[in-house]
Structures are given as C-alpha cells and as structure tokens.
C-alpha cells in the first residue's frame, strides 16, 4: 500500500525555536505510525524547491503559523500564493489541509479570520479543508514543554491536539477548535508584561522607555 505522505509546515518567520514549530512537535507523536511525515520551514517569502515538491506530493498538509495582525504573516501569504499557482498546474483535490494558528492573545478565537483565510485558500487552490485549531496564549507554549500532557495549563491544549490528530489520522473533516490556556488570563497578562520589561532591560532600556512616543 502506498504510504500516506504528510507535510508539516511551520509558517513562523523564525526557523528555530518557534511556537509554530513547537506545536507541530507536539502533534507529530499523535500521528499514525503509517504516515510518512516530513517537516518544512516556510520562513521566507518563497517556498523552497524541496518543500514545494514535498507539498505537491503530499496527501495531507498541516500548516502551523503565528497570528500576525489578525491574519496570515505576509511572507507565508506569499508562499500560499505560490502553492496555489503550483496546484493550478498539478491539481490535488484529494489533498486535505489542516491549520494550527497560535496567537499571543489569551483567546484562541482571535485566530478565526486567519483560519477562514486558509479555508478560502483551499477553495481557490481546489484542495480539501480538514480542520482548524486556534491556540490562545501562544507566548507560553514553549514554556510548557515540561508539563505532562493533559495536565494543568496544558489540559485544553492537549485535548485539542488529540482531536486534531484524530481527524488527521482518519483523513476526516472536523469542527474548528479555539482554545485558551487553563491558566488565569490575569496571570498570563502579568507574565507577558514581566517578559517585555525583562527583554527591554536586556536591551539597555528602562521600564518607561516601553511607553516611548515618537509624535
């Protein structure tokens, strides 16, 4: 039997240590052993040749990217356009697309317009939509790597990944899922703002510099 090919593509502009990549790392062990899985970084304005070849030959694409200004980061948008053009030459209506969008805000549902854009892309590119997952609290995803699956602040996150993996493994379409961390929103806000102050201090700035106005 021909193996099912799955492309996991990170659309973060960061090639290493991105939340988008971490989400794919968490998804991968949940995928069927029968899949032939490859990983690709779409961190530039054009799809690398090798990634494009893998994509066009895939049965399943899982696209993971950060929410930028309520939408798809511009470099990834350009990549999706290139992929659409390629799909016009090599139609793959049987290919199924799943999207994971992480946002720095607490509420995963703020990723809804971006997930709809991927659905609209599927329509234009004539591929099959599978399911979308909007993950809130993107700023803490990487810090949760030591937390056991399904526990504490990872509860919603783990259950959502299980549900997404189920649909990928069965090649089926699922309802979109939007989650927030199992963690108080105020705690997330305080932690994030401490992080900004720490980073500005590392850059030689003081707390008030964060408020700088140029007009």
């Amino acid at each position, binding site marked *: 039997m021909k193996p099912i090919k799955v492309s996991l593509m990170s659309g973060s502009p960061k090639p290493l240590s991105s939340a988008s990549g971490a989400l794919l790392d968490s998804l991968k062990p949940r995928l069927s052993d029968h899949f032939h899985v490859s990983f690709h970084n779409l961190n530039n304005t054009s799809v690398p040749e090798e990634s494009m070849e893998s994509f066009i030959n895939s049965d399943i694409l899982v696209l993971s990217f950060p929410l930028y200004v309520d939408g798809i980061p511009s470099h990834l948008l350009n990549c999706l356009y290139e992929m659409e053009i390629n799909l016009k030459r090599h139609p793959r209506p049987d290919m199924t697309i799943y999207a994971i969008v992480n946002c720095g805000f607490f509420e995963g549902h703020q990723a809804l317009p971006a997930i*709809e854009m991927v659905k609209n892309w599927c329509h234009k590119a004539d591929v099959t939509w599978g399911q979308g997952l909007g993950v809130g609290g993107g700023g803490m995803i990487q810090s949760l790597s030591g937390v056991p699956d399904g526990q504490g602040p990872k509860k919603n996150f783990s259950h959502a990944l299980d549900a997404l993996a189920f649909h990928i493994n069965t090649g089926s379409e699922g309802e979109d899922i939007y989650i927030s961390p199992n963690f108080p929103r105020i705690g997330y806000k305080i932690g994030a703002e401490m992080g900004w102050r720490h980073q*500005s201090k590392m850059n030689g700035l003081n707390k008030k510099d964060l408020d700088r106005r140029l*007009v």
Partner: protein
Amino acid sequence: MKLIIHDLDELKFKRLFPDLPNSFRVVSNDGTIKKCVGCFGCWVKTPGACVIRDNYGDMGEWLAKSDEVIIISKCFYGGYSPFVKNVLDRSISYIHPYFATRNNEMHHKKRYNHTFETSVWFYGDDITEDEKATANKLVVANSINMISNIKGIHFVDSVEEIGGGIL
C-alpha cells in the same frame, strides 16, 4: 494627514489618483520591503519604531500622525495582498506591548492617545462571498487591535471603480 497604503504599481496609482493633496502620504511597493521577523524589537529595543530600517520602518509613527488610513488592496483569500499585509505586519510599533481588555478580550494597550479612521478598498474580479465575509471580520478585528474606527469596507471588481472615493 491621510495615509494611503496600496499595492498598485506606481504608474497605475498616479493615473488613478493624479492630484492628491499634500496632506496625503502614500505607502507604495518600491520592491524593497523586508518581512517582519517577529523579533518584537519595535517594542523592546527601539520602542515605537521597527528595527528594520528600510523605507517601511516608521509605520508606527506615520499611523500616529494620521487622521485617516486608506487601504487599497487586492483581496487575497479574504485578506490583504502580501505587500499590504507586509506593511501592516511592520506597523505594530503603533501599539504598546502591554495588554488591555476590550470587548472582554485581550488586546494591546494604546501607545498614543490617538485614533484614526480606516477605509478599506478590496479589489478583484473573483472575490467570493466567503472571502467578503472573512475580509469584513478581518477589518473589524484590525480596528479593535489598532484602536481605529472603520469608515468603510468596500469591494470592487476593479480599482478604476474607486475613483474619487478615497478623497
């Protein structure tokens, strides 16, 4: 000041809008724009300005000087074109890294005691109803996050239909 962000080629833009008053600043695609790299330097290194010093590094300041922002963009999948989106991705220095709650959701705090109106013109002869619905949601979300008021969201088959609508 009125700020126009568009993705038309220069000749076409000049032909369509030949006599813009001096109160307009126009952000066009000169082919040199760099992508946002997600470094947040515009918040924690050079607050208020992008660390990438190409011709688009001062978008936050330009937004703060604008009473109205007019976006003219080919509609891509219910959103902006890659160039227009690139400009917007490079504009987050306009807001503050800290969070505020609006509409019972987490958003960013204002950096400036200022707001502007936004008019968006999406063009394209194959915009679907789903794309229009998504684009409306996107512009509403942008207006909440960038603390602006929506003046209008328009869909036209061709940019020629915009005419004097932006003035």
